[in-house]
């Protein structure tokens, strides 16, 4: 595995090296009861709160010990609260945070290294980006002149999960077995795997003992989760296609435009307002509040020419692979009919 400097570990505290670091520091759960640890616990709590709002925790790698320890304590807090949506949001936000650093490392690789300041630090950041992408995701990023490239097969295995046409291989620069990509695109390719990796790390931690000083913040997290779960209304009365769309968005995965359109038109038809629907899209990888609101208002017919759009038919959704029909769907031709039809000859 990698040998990382402490500043690099502060960027990627979910790596296995964190265990070695904690051992070196002589870290143990009992000592956390000491009031000296209060600032770290507060930072950890803040880190989780930021994550639940869908934002990315900025961090401060100039203070690497605090950075690493607040991540570790964050996990202990989450494990103690035991609420899986909080874990999911935390791992997603941590993944996005790590993405920034991975991208910075790849960017440094593309620049002429002779004129970089802090050469040693930059070099470390390049090496850790390359090694993490190689070790965690088995992708070797290579450089040719100042261009980054990966093998075509490595590209296809990830890019096929994106729906936008620019990710089709035919819309990429392909030469001699490689796809040429920007640092941003390479990191975008591994987003999902990074999230899954961090989430599995959180899952694998077991906490045998919760220090007394943590109890208050654990309680706050439980309250926070309650408050925040009311922003997403997942009703059991929704048809499976709508439930699926909400789940996809909730996981921070990409839902194609046709799926977003279906979800929006369905919920509008059920009497929800743009303000109620907009938060559903908050976890989407390309979320932009202003654009989302604008699009929703457009679909609702409350802006522009005022055309009101209706929910697509089941047949249309089937053709777009958005239909997940269950027996209760029998006899309906549009999702909005779900649950309203009763079999007449029952």
């Amino acid at each position, binding site marked *: 595995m990698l040998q990382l400097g402490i500043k690099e570990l502060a960027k990627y505290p979910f790596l296995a090296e964190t265990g070695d670091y904690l051992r070196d520091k002589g870290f143990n759960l009992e000592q956390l009861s000491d009031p000296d640890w209060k600032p770290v616990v507060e930072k950890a709590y803040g880190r989780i709160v930021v994550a639940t709002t869908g934002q990315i925790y900025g961090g401060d790698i100039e203070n690497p010990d605090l950075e690493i320890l607040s991540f570790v304590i964050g996990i202990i807090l989450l494990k103690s609260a035991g609420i899986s949506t909080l874990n999911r949001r935390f791992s997603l936000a941590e993944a996005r945070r790590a993405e920034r650093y991975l991208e910075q490392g790849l960017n440094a690789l593309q620049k002429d290294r002779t004129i970089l300041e802090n050469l040693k630090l930059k070099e470390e950041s390049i090496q850790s980006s390359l090694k993490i992408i190689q070790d965690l995701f088995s992708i070797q990023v290579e450089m040719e002149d100042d261009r980054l490239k990966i093998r075509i097969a490595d590209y296809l295995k990830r890019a096929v999960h994106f729906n936008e046409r620019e990710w089709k291989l035919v819309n*990429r620069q392909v030469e*001699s077995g490689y796809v040429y990509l920007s640092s941003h695109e390479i990191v975008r390719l591994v987003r999902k795997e990074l999230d899954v990796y961090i989430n599995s790390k959180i899952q694998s931690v077991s906490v045998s003992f919760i220090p007394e000083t943590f109890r208050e913040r654990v309680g706050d997290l439980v309250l926070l989760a309650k408050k925040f779960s009311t922003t997403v209304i997942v009703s059991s009365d929704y048809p499976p296609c709508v439930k699926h769309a909400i789940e996809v968005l909730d996981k921070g995965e990409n839902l194609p435009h046709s799926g977003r359109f279906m979800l929006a038109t369905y919920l509008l038809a059920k009497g929800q307002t743009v303000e109620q629907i907009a938060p559903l899209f908050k976890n989407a990888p390309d979320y932009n509040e202003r654009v989302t609101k604008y699009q929703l208002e457009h679909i609702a017919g409350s802006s522009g020419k005022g055309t009101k759009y209706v929910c697509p038919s089941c047949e249309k959704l089937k053709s777009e692979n958005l239909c997940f029909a269950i027996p209760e769907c029998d006899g309906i031709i549009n999702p909005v009919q779900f649950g309203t039809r009763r079999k007449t000859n029952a």
Partner: protein
Amino acid sequence: MLEKNINFVEAALKEYYFNNFELIHVPSRTSEREFGYQKFNSGMTRHLTIKNDKDLHFLLMTQMPSDVYCSNACYSFPNLPMSEKDWKEAELIFDIDAKDLKLDCRKNHTCFKCNSCQCINEQSSKCIKCNSDKFDVISVTCQNCISETKKEVQKLVQVLTEDLAINKEKILVYFSGNEGFHVHIENSEYQTLDSRERADLADYIMFNGVIPETLGINRQNNSKMLLPDIGEKGWRGRVAREIFGTKSKRPKIIQEILLGGYSAFQSRLEEMRHTIGVRIDPKVTMDIHRIFRLGGSINSKSGLSKILCKDLENFDPFSDACLLGDEKVEVLANYPISFRLKNKKYGPYVGETISVPKHAAVYMICKGLADVTQ
């Protein structure tokens, strides 16, 4: 197929296999492959394992199959049902078939056999004898069909070697035994790709789904700086060579493109799928659980062999893949179009009893154009 035709063709195939064991082999990683075969007038037998060449030859002699297949995939348990096979990887395969190319020559060598009265029609609206509207399409392949499919194979090989960096030695081009070519890629880094990933690879090869932005044409603010250059690699270079041709025409053509705008360029790219795109059958490439005709075996649609083409340019399927015997056989033939085999012209025939070499007799019977007389 009529009983007497089956007996005759089975005997001819058995004789071919007996005399040509050196042409038909099990592939590498034999024990991880699924085999299958078909007999005339019956369904497919799948999920078989075969240990070695000897067992394969035994099967050919005892079962007298019309067609023999083998998976391009490797499995842990190839003889279990599909869901339990445990797929490991599959060689990349491509199928280029003349009938998918929609060539103009096609109508000159296609006819329609009425399902109810068996009479041959030149059109498929209504049978001239019995008014039925159910037909079997019968087509022989002409030299033009073969040379056009060869061009597609050459385009494919170019994309595979230049863009995908597949070594030429690993690209095996087979004549399919009927109307086209099968291209097998041995041992490549693409073997672990799943069906969806292969679908996108197929789109790449076919030049499907390209957006104008890829070629530097945006919805607004276009600049000639972003347009492709003929020296570029990959599709940008191919598009540039297709639209610019010579250097001197370039400035004028660039002007036209920039003036024409986004959607005009988009439809131009759409059309280019048929010229620079490679017309493979994407369903074959995407299917990672397929059993595929085994090299060296006879294709029962024609009686020709699926055979490796070492020199594609000079390959002539109508003699190089026509490997059955020459003894004369009497058949009753009915076919309004002529064809060539081993440099000899046959037909057209109007219900005539003729004496032809065995390879021609099998060809006509397999195509449904003749019956043996005894």
